């Protein structure tokens, strides 16, 4: 196999990595917000449930969570929905791995939503009480205060920790190969097994590096754009 052929083969895998990355970010980032609000709730049971979920999700390896999501429906309820989905999409549309990818997306989204929620919570709680009080004495409603005064300050504060998580996320996508989803590292291992080529495995690092480089630039710009004020 030529260098170009290997690159194309790995790129197919990297598209799956990027898919997991994008969906996790697009679903996990919004989902983190209600979890954060529940963790800050004054209603004790809600707060407790939320804290326990975050504790479990952050306390168990993501790889194990992928196994649990993928295997538990079949083991406990005798309906292996994800492998059924695999078969259904393969037979009807010729798409491989669909069910496995969905399982991975669920595990990733839930996991990252919990991490994001803690970043949001930290950001929201770091805003001084005086900002809320200034809004109150000006007769603003709670929702106006949050949307017009608090939110932007929170965003400014959470961009650096969120950048960190986002950069970790693209590398975590490699965990999907634990249930044989053909992301980039799985593809490289395939080459090692079938063509006795080991170098593509190390070559995958270049894909990650280039993407993380891009992310660093974009996130750095966002951080700079928000630095026009100091809170």
């Amino acid at each position, binding site marked *: 196999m030529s260098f170009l052929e290997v690159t194309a083969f790995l790129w197919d895998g990297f598209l799956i990595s990027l898919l997991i990355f994008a969906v996790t970010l697009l679903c996990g980032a919004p989902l983190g917000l209600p979890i954060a609000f529940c963790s800050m709730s004054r209603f004790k049971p809600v707060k407790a449930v939320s804290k326990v979920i975050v504790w479990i999700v952050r306390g168990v390896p993501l790889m194990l969570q992928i196994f649990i999501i993928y295997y538990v429906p079949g083991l406990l309820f005798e309906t292996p929905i994800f492998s059924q989905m695999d078969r259904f999409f393969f037979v009807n549309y010729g798409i491989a791995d669909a069910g496995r990818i969905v399982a991975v997306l669920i595990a990733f989204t839930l996991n990252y939503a919990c991490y994001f929620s803690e970043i949001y919570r930290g950001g929201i709680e770091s805003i001084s009480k005086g900002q809320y009080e200034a809004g109150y004495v000006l*007769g603003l409603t709670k929702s106006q205060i949050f949307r017009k005064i608090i939110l932007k300050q929170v965003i400014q504060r959470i961009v650096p920790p969120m950048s960190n998580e986002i950069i970790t996320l693209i590398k975590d996508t490699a965990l999907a190969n634990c249930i044989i989803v053909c992301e980039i590292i799985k593809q490289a291992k395939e080459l090692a097994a079938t063509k006795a080529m080991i170098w593509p495995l190390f070559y995958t690092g270049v894909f990650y590096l280039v993407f993380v480089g891009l992310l660093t630039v974009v996130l750095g710009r966002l951080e700079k754009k928000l630095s026009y004020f100091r809170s």
Partner: protein
Amino acid sequence: MALLEAKNITKSFGKTEVLKGISFSLNKGEVLSIIGSSGSGKTTLLRCLNFLELPDEGSITVGGKVLYDGSDATTLSDEAIRQNRLHFGLVFQNFNLFPQYTVLENVTLAPTLLKRGTPQEIEQTALRLLEQVGLSDKLGSYPHQLSGGQQQRVAIARALALRPEVLCFDEPTSALDPELTGEVLRVIRGLKDKDTTMIVVTHEMEFARCVADRVIYMADGVIEEMGTPEQVFGQPQSEKTKAFLRGAQDLF
């Protein structure tokens, strides 16, 4: 008839009784200074008037309208409290400007959100108020680019933009470097000439003596002495007041 009437306000935090029945009234255009040592309840009283703390008992009446009555549940709803806050303005010790907005936007934000006129009218008012506090050249600056004194003057303009009937100041110069207190106190004195009704919690005895129409000395959650500056500073009746004023003078 007095503009503001506070009757028998009490407030406890847990077992600590901070306000033990405060009553006073204030006429339109008057300036009231509240003095007293730290922990005497001055700031809590001011926060009660702005409903940042809700009094346990007592009532607050402005212009004949009962804004708050500890025994009347209709005045205790979130919405009633939000509306009634608008009778008061509050300038904080730490300014609490909104950092992501410019000076002008800080002043126009609340009137815009509360739909107090057209955008042009709101901006006109804001520009006039910022001129009044001497910051016409800082309209586009962000709070972190201003000195403490300038920030506090923006905060005053921001509070005035909603035309409160009573403007409260919570130790407005305590967070400022000594050379910056003058500019803020001059602005407050300027407001007195425009007939603004004000309550100023302050440690600046000279300011209280010269600007206030009436002075309240608070100690341990009660009004220990109340009267004109001449009475309170010149012929204090209570032993506590005398001791406090001596302490304030005999610093060196």
